Structure formats: structure tokens, C-alpha cells
């Protein structure tokens, strides 16, 4: 596997920066949608290489950050039941709900296991038929196919002690919500490459057309992001608003059809509440009626929407791209990864955590 040689090459980066400088004539605000892109930008200092006219704002594509607080509370409530083995991606364990996080629940005696795939959680269910095994299914279109596959297999094999606590969300409706917001400054998008690996990019075509906004499907390495910025700026300067695919080495127009098929079989599109963004119509996935038996909310009670007690935290505005982390008066002072006021400081993909980790508290 090669990384640096091809996609982190300083000479190629300088070449792209020169091309961007030669193209830009006016100020533009672009949003990178995915938290992985945000981290690459801050880690490699890509924003500091760009001309002053280009402002990158950070998008809502951090799965941990947008999971609403009631699902964290529900996760902890389920995890504390003695018959339950609660399985989750590691990144979710540190996210605070109304009271504490899953690490704290584990320290109190709840059986919370970190798994690396929902299929590992299904294995746990097979190994412990006497226990209820619940997997915390969060994330975007990237994680949904594997989660769907776990349920599909559980159904086919008759594994009855397995269920999902589902808080899946979809990217295009969130982009639409941002574009429809009066506070939005976004003039062009770097779309999340990995999401498009699964979904393709046909669903972005009407979005680009309706809102007259260029959308460039972009990868995650420094050169990917610089090229995505270049393509997006080139369109803006030319007054164009097309969908372009920078990440052609991984993304096809139609996406990954088998992955979409299993998602379509197991999940159905529903409205979802997003932490920091509120309810967005048709913006999430829930289990389809035929698989409703695998819904942890059916077995253990539904998550009841709770108010975000944001206080002085501006994570909602950060997730909508309206503010940047250092604009928050609490950043690095009253809000740190040890004592986070909001999820964007907790998650390894959160924008505030990226600034804190790579640029320090100042």
C-alpha cells in the first residue's frame, strides 16, 4: 500500500497550490463535508497553503458528532441492563450523553465491547445465545452497508439475540439543509469521497443544479483535497455548478450497487434528528418493516428526543459550517478533549478536536 509517495508529495502539492493561485480572483467559501477531510486539512495545514481568498468551512460529516443525545442516553440505558452485551465502534465510547459516557458505564460494570465491524458483534451474539447483543449502528452511508449485512445475516441464520440501535444518517439531505439555511456561507462543496464510493454521485446532480453550487467528489489525502479545491474554484470562477469526480480511483458514478442493495433490503429512509442541526426530513435510515424485529428500540423502548443542553457550546454552528472552532470563546479554555462541552471536541473526527489536536489550545 502506498500513501505518501503518491498523494502526499510536496512537489505535486506546490504545483496544485500554484494552479489554485492562478485561478482564483475573488473570495470563495468551500465546505468539506467529511470529518476525515477536516482532519487531513488541519493535520497537513492545507488551509494554510491556500490563498487568502479561499475559506474552508467544516461540514457535518462526523458520525459521532451528529448522533443525537437521546441515542447516547438510550445506548447507556441498554448497556447497563445485565442481560446485554453492548457492542460499539470505539469512537462512540467517549461521547457524553446527558450523564456520562459509555466508558463510564463500562467502569460501572456495564458490559461494553469495542468491535471493529458489526459482523464481529454478530459473532458475539452467536457465541452468547443466553445474552442480548446490541450493536450501536451509527454513521453515514459508509457504515450502513456492513450494518445492513449483519442484520441480513442474523435474519437468515435465525440469530434472535442480536439487534441494532440505529442512528444512521444520510449526507445529501444535510447538504440540502445547509444550503437552505439563511446563515450558510457555503458556495461550493467537497463531497465525502467514501460516502460516494458506496452511493455514487447521481444523487448530487439535482442538488448542484437546484442550488447552483459546484460539488466535487473528493478523497482524503492532501493532494486529493488540494485537487478538489482546485476543481471547485475553477467551476466557481467560471460560473459553473456541476458535479465533478476528483476521487475517480475509488468512486464510480453509480457507486457500489451490491452495497446499496443490502442497504435497501434492510433499511428504509426516515426523518432523523441530527445533533446540532435538528430534524431533517428523509435524512436517515431506520430498519425496514421486515427487519423491525432486530430493532433495539423495539426490544428496549424507543429513544425519546431530548434537548441538547449546549450552553455556550457552538458545536451546532460548527457542524453547519457557520463558525470555526477557534471562534468559540470556550475553545481550549473551558472546552478541551478531557472536559468537552460538545461532541465536536470529543470525536476523533470532530472539527474542534482536529484544531485542538493539531494546532493546540491557543
Amino acid at each position, binding site marked *: *500500500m502506498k500513501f505518501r509517495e503518491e498523494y502526499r508529495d510536496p512537489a505535486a502539492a506546490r504545483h496544485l497550490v500554484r494552479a489554485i493561485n492562478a485561478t482564483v480572483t475573488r473570495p470563495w467559501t468551500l465546505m468539506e463535508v467529511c470529518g476525515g477531510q477536516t482532519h487531513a486539512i488541519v493535520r497537513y*495545514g492545507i488551509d494554510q497553503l491556500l490563498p487568502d481568498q479561499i475559506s474552508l468551512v467544516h461540514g457535518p460529516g462526523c458520525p459521532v458528532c451528529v448522533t443525537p443525545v437521546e441515542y447516547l442516553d438510550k445506548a447507556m440505558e441498554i448497556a447497563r441492563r445485565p442481560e446485554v452485551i453492548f457492542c460499539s465502534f470505539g469512537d462512540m465510547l467517549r461521547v457524553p450523553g446527558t450523564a456520562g459516557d459509555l466508558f463510564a458505564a463500562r467502569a460501572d460494570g456495564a458490559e461494553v465491547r469495542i468491535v*471493529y465491524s458489526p459482523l464481529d458483534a454478530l459473532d458475539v451474539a452467536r457465541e452468547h445465545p443466553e445474552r442480548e447483543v446490541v450493536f450501536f449502528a451509527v454513521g453515514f452511508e459508509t457504515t450502513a452497508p456492513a450494518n445492513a449485512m449483519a442484520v441480513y445475516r442474523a435474519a437468515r441464520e435465525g440469530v434472535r439475540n442480536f439487534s441494532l440501535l440505529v442512528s444512521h444518517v444520510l449526507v445529501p439531505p444535510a447538504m440540502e439543509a445547509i444550503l437552505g439555511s439563511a446563515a450558510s456561507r457555503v458556495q461550493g462543496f467537497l463531497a465525502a469521497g467514501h460516502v460516494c464510493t458506496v452511493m455514487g454521485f447521481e444523487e448530487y446532480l439535482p442538488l448542484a443544479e437546484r442550488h447552483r453550487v459546484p460539488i466535487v467528489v473528493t478523497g482524503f489525502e*492532501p493532494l486529493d483535497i488540494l485537487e478538489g479545491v482546485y476543481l471547485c474554484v475553477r467551476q466557481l470562477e467560471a460560473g459553473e455548478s456541476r458535479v465533478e469526480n476528483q476521487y475517480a480511483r475509488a468512486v464510480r458514478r453509480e457507486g457500489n450497487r451490491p452495497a446499496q442493495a443490502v442497504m435497501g433490503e434492510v433499511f428504509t429512509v426516515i426523518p432523523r434528528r441530527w445533533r446540532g442541526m435538528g430534524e431533517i426530513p428523509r435524512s436517515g435510515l431506520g430498519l425496514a418493516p421486515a427487519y423491525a424485529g432486530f430493532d433495539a428500540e423495539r426490544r428496549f423502548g424507543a429513544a425519546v428526543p431530548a434537548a441538547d443542553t449546549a450552553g455556550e457550546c457552538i458545536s451546532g454552528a460548527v457542524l453547519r459550517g457557520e463558525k470555526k472552532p477557534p471562534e468559540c470563546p470556550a475553545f481550549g479554555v473551558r472546552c478541551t478533549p478531557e472536559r468537552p462541552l460538545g461532541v465536536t471536541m470529543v470525536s*476523533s473526527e470532530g472539527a474542534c478536536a482536529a484544531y485542538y489536536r493539531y494546532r493546540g489550545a491557543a
Partner: protein
Amino acid sequence: MAESPFPACPLPAGFADSVQLAHGGGGRAMQQLIDGIFRAAFDNPWLQQRHDGAVFELNGRCALTTDSYVVWPLVFPGGDIGSLAVNGTVNDLAMCGARPRYLSAGFVLEEGLAMTTLGGIAASMAAAARAAGVYIVTGDVKVVDRGRADGVYINTAGVGEISAAAPVAPASVQAGDAVLLSGDIGRHGIAVMAARGDLGLETDIASDCAPLAEPVLALIEAGIRLHCVRDLTRGGLAGALVEVAQDAGVAVHVREDDVPVRAEVRAACELLGLDPAYVANEGRFAAFVAAGDAERALALLREHEVSAGAVCIGEVQAAPAAQVTLRGPLGVPRVLDLLHGDQLPRIC
């Protein structure tokens, strides 16, 4: 909450209610635990040295250190809990500039542990002790009920003699020092994660677990102006450099491209979303030496197998104090800070 049967110990405001895994992760949570509970309770001048071991006078200068080993699985590519328990303590003494001499070994055994496993661990410890030139001269055994431990836990303590004239400690680090790294980083942490089998990673990455006293003592004996050495265990390269920068009140500037990481370690880190700078090592150290001695020090280190891949990765400057910056491949510097606890694999 039930009243504690122990004497009152005032905790800093906002301290965690209970111990969590992050408190042992080598990051900021562990630093807070040590400062808030242990340093507060035991405060004395030797603890204030804030080093891998304590240095004191006892018919000559000595170093004392202790470490507990709870690694799982007990055996992993490149080592096992026994070799780790000897090398880890030998290395902590070496990081004080001491020649390791005598070790103690305390065992907490879980009822049901296979006797062949225990025998194998003892043999591994004996071999590691021979290789490091130390003797295990006293010990202790406790057996607990099945389920109250994870096979075997080992504590080792060690004493060593110090011959260096100047203290080898963070306080000796000064602006202008060169920062040397003894070889490639990240292998131990990835090898142990892969050996746990829950990553689905098939790799032949082996731990770098090894004794480090010989190359460190070679620097001292050759008269290299060695100001500080720190092994890169929990918290990795980043953790070690940040601790030294904070304790010495200096700025450490590192060039990321000069930090060696093997391709297979880099690939595993990319897949899991981990930063190799924070992954644990058990046979690597960073050395802070006077700039004029850097070339000679590198040549000396490269004569030893465990530090054959030694390189210069950066230098110490006066400002910004207590900070580590890493200049990335695109030339833009970023701050390297302690993490809260362990790195967690990302979601997507």
C-alpha cells in the same frame, strides 16, 4: 455514594468519579491521575524529578524504578509478558543513565493458569535478564481466584548504578540540543493489537521489545553530552517528547518525514485511523544530545543492533516553551500534544 473506608484524600475539582481505561493510556488522563492522586499524596524531591525512575545517593548514585505488566495476549510476535517485564524495567533504569543491576519480580497469578505457561514466562524472563546483564534477585507470588485476574500480572522493580557525571534527565535539556530517535516506531503497539485477533489484521509485524541499556551507556561512556533519554512506551514518540518538552520547559521541533515508520506499520495505522507517533514501542528511545555531539552519537548508536536505525529527527529550541511541533510532508508545522487516553480506531 458509600462512605470511603480510607483516610480523606481531597481530589482536584472536576476529577473523574472512578478509574477508567484512559487513566492507564499514557496520555493526559494518566498524567492527571498521577499528579492528582499519587504525586499529591507522596510528594518529595525524588518524585519531582518526573523521570522514568528516581535517582538518589546510597553509597554512590543509584536509580530505582518499578513497572507492572498486564499485557494481553501473554505472548505476541517479538515477545511475551516475561521479556517485556524485564526489558521494560531495564529500559526505565537505562533512561535514568543507570547501568541496570538487580531486579525484583512480583507475580499475581490467576487460579487455573497453566503451569507450562508460567514456566515459559519464567524462562523468557531468565533469558531477557541474561541478555540485559541483570539478575532477578527477589520476588513474590500471590494467587487470586479465577476471574479476579487475567492469567498473570507481573511487577518488576530494578536498581542500577549511575556513572554519568551530569544528570540525564529532562531538566538538563537545553535549546540547541539535537533530538535523536533510535529506530522505526510503532511496531510493539500494532503487533499486540494484531495478536489480540479482533482486528482481522494478518500481519507479520513483530514487537520491537528489547533492552536499551547498552547503547545508552555507550553514549555516556564515550563522553557524549547526553542530556536526556526517554523510552517511547505508552503514549509513543509523541507522549515522550511532550513530557520532556513540558518538564524541561523547551520547544521540541520534529521533522515528520525523518521519523522512520515501516510500511506495514504505516498501512495498519492508516486502516485503523491511528497516528504512529502515539503508538507504543518497547525498544525505542529518544535521546537529547548537545548538537555538536549529534553525529558522533548517531555513529555510536548505529553500532548496536537495537539502535542500528538511529536518526536525527529534530532539535530543541527555547520557544514556544513546553510544546512539540511536527513539520509535516507539506512543510506546515502542527502541534503534537498528549492524547486524553488511548487512541481509538475511527468509525469510517
